[in-house]
């Protein structure tokens, strides 16, 4: 492999093919590219736009909640703001965030392939994503949607006076881009691994992408059908969920959550992958319990399909079903806990570098643990009856999705930034961003746990004055969090033009993606790869005492 460190990332003219960034620089060359790396960047630009859009809605919500009376937004505007926030953040930012950007960029490189299995399908998925995004955008501009991101019937089909059809259609369309990405990744992992890259040698990021893709492929079509049924009932008056004809609104909830609970794992499994890569590299340790990390992700991907009913404990679902779903929700906490223990185990006796990606990753572990444990509260039926539809729920899923997934996304963005752009960012400024994001996040969402247990319901902008201190705390925290998100734009943007050129492997990492130039050439590698070792060999075997050497540790009594 070409890893002459003296030459760094500067492509030498004539001698080797240019980097993927220099392979055509026109807008047309970008919009018609089938290069997985460029498509990853197209996705990154698109989701950054949607992230900003969702963040504006969040800012409106937090501004409104500073005072107990609804004096900044009207009732309708407030409903539209949180619906916009939910729809945009879930389907147009979080679901595609890590898989479509980092996943697209890294997955083929990590397994030593030239590209994904179906490159044209990959480009098409981006256009489908944009089409769905435009529909949703159009729904917002036309006057917004007020159903919440869940589109619950009968409100969405019979009563709401907002642009439900457009928004539902937008989400329907964007689902196909998820499916296309999923099928593509699964086929890529199965068929394009380099010689010697066996399943148990795959980096955990690849396993994360693989399991995420499984969930995407198997869950998204059910969402598509449930939205199609909403459209049929709303636009054509066909009585599907309408109780007057014997329909059951809970049928919609079953269909919707069959997708939307696994969707949580679509958002968090990729984060697991990113964090595993960062922690091993920045602690200079082999991952603790590689096989269990793999099995945990597979089990989460499968059992994740059998727990959706814990969203419906107070909906009128049968007591028996609630018990089954509650039990399975506890079961799925086990593999998640295994992962947290193994990351912590990886740190033990490591040589930890507190670099910016590592700070994000460590923040992830803490926040994900809190989010996961509060999830157990909500999985328990009697507690959930008290906590359902309160800010406790809001805080819980933000700990998983923002504290977990978004932290990991930023960590991954920093970690692979030198590989993607060929430039180094300022470590100091990045550490500052990571720390402000961690603190800002906790300031924003921890008070919401407390409000929630005290009974503050979600989705109201008019609330009793005794909750005001908590809401003010939360809104001030959101300012810090907002800073944590904006700050990287400046130093990362700066690095694009003024940053030092990155060497091929600035972190001294073991993955295949680091064994090529930064930024990589269009075909990823200058020569064919053969893999003959397991991942994460940060310290040779037998180089450490038995109790630290995890692979064959002898148990001491």
């Amino acid at each position, binding site marked *: 492999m070409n890893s002459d460190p003296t030459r760094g990332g500067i492509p030498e003219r004539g001698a080797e093919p240019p980097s993927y960034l220099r392979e055509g620089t026109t807008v047309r060359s970008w919009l018609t590219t*089938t290069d997985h790396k460029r498509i990853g960047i197209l996705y990154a630009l698109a989701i950054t736009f949607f992230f900003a859009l969702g963040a504006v809605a969040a800012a409106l919500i937090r501004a409104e909640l500073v005072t107990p009376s609804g004096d900044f937004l009207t009732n309708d505007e407030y409903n539209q703001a949180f619906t916009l926030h939910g729809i945009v953040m879930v389907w147009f930012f979080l679901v595609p965030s890590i898989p479509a950007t980092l996943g697209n960029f890294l997955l*083929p490189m990590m397994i030593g*392939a*030239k*590209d*994904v*299995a*179906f*490159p044209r*399908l990959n480009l098409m998925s981006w256009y489908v994503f944009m089409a769905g995004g435009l529909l949703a955008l159009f729904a917002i501009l036309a006057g917004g949607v007020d159903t919440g991101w869940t589109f619950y019937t009968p409100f969405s089909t019979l009563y709401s006076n907002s642009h439900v059809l457009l928004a539902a259609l937008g989400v329907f369309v964007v689902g196909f881009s998820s*499916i296309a990405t*999923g*099928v*593509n990744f*699964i*086929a*890529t992992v*199965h*068929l*394009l691994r380099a010689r010697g890259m066996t399943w148990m040698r795959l980096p955990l990021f690849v396993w994360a992408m693989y399991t995420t893709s499984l969930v995407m*492929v*198997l*869950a*998204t*079509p*059910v969402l*598509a*059908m*449930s939205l*199609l*049924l909403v459209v*049929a*009932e709303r636009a*054509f*008056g*066909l*009585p*599907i969920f*309408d109780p*007057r*004809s*014997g*329909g*059951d609104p809970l*049928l919609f909830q*079953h*269909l919707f959550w069959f997708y939307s609970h696994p969707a949580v794992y679509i958002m968090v499994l990729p984060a697991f992958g990113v964090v595993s890569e960062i922690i091993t590299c920045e602690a200079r340790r082999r991952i603790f319990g590689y096989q269990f990390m793999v099995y945990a992700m597979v089990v989460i991907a499968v059992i994740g399909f059998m727990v959706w009913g814990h969203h419906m404990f107070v909906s009128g679902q049968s007591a028996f079903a609630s018990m089954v779903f509650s039990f399975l929700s506890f079961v799925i906490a086990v593999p998640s806990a295994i992962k947290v223990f193994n990351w912590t185990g990886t740190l033990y006796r490591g040589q930890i570098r507190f670099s910016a990606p590592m700070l994000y990753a460590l923040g992830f572990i803490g926040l994900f643990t809190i989010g996961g444990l509060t999830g157990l509260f909500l999985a328990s039926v009697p507690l959930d009856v008290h906590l359902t539809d309160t800010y406790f729920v809001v805080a819980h899923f933000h700990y998983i999705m923002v504290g977990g997934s978004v932290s990991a996304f930023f960590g991954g963005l920093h970690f692979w930034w030198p590989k993607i752009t060929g430039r180094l960012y300022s470590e100091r400024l990045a550490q500052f961003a990571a720390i402000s994001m961690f603190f800002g996040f906790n300031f924003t969402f921890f008070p919401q746990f407390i409000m929630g247990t005290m009974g503050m319901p979600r989705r109201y902008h008019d609330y009793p004055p005794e909750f005001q201190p908590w809401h003010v705390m939360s809104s001030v925290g959101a300012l810090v969090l907002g800073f944590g998100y904006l700050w990287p734009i400046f130093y990362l943007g700066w690095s694009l033009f003024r940053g030092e050129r990155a060497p091929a492997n600035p972190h001294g990492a073991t993955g295949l993606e680091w064994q090529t130039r930064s930024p990589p050439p269009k075909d990823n590698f200058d020569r064919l790869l053969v893999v003959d070792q397991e991942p994460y060999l940060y310290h040779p075997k037998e180089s450490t005492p038995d109790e630290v050497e995890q692979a064959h540790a002898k148990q001491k009594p």
Partner: protein
Amino acid sequence: MAEDLVLHEPFEEAARQRIAVPFGVWSFLATECLFFGGILLFYAYARWHGGEAFTQGAKEAAVWYGTINTAVLMTSSLTMAIAERATKGGFRVVARWMLGGTLMLGLSFLVIKGFEYRKDVHEHLIPGPGFKFGQGPAAQFWAFYWTATVTHAIHVTIGLGIIARLLWIERRGDLLLHATSAQGGALYWHLVDIVWVVLYPLLYLVGRP
């Protein structure tokens, strides 16, 4: 057996690519299975919950149209299967005629469906104002009928588009090099057939004496 194949970018060898297309298409068909699984769940609920009143609505379904269409679509599956095998075996003329036949049968399916829809509309079988049965499980049956058959018809139309593209490739003269495309298209067309085969008893045989 024709061994030449147009190699697409990431693949270094034809053997892998030859697995890739059916595998990719089958994965997509798995999503179709779940997609239609969603609406079949609605059917299962409505039939279980609606009981006799649901069956009452089903009595109005035009069994003749349904049965003829099943026969048409199953025959189109036959021609598609032959077309696909002929492509793989290198028999261009057979492949062309069989693809053309599939296209014709698919179109006749849509035409027959159109006549059936016309009859349904005449008999006020669209739930809503003026619906024959008023509110109730019978309306749910017809809600399922319209949603499922229209969704299926859209699938048929997409399938016809794929077949038209295969015919266009054949006209260009290199269908044999695109045997994997033919295979993918055929798999999709067969799935459309299977969906109809499952819908047939649910829609047309429920209300029989």
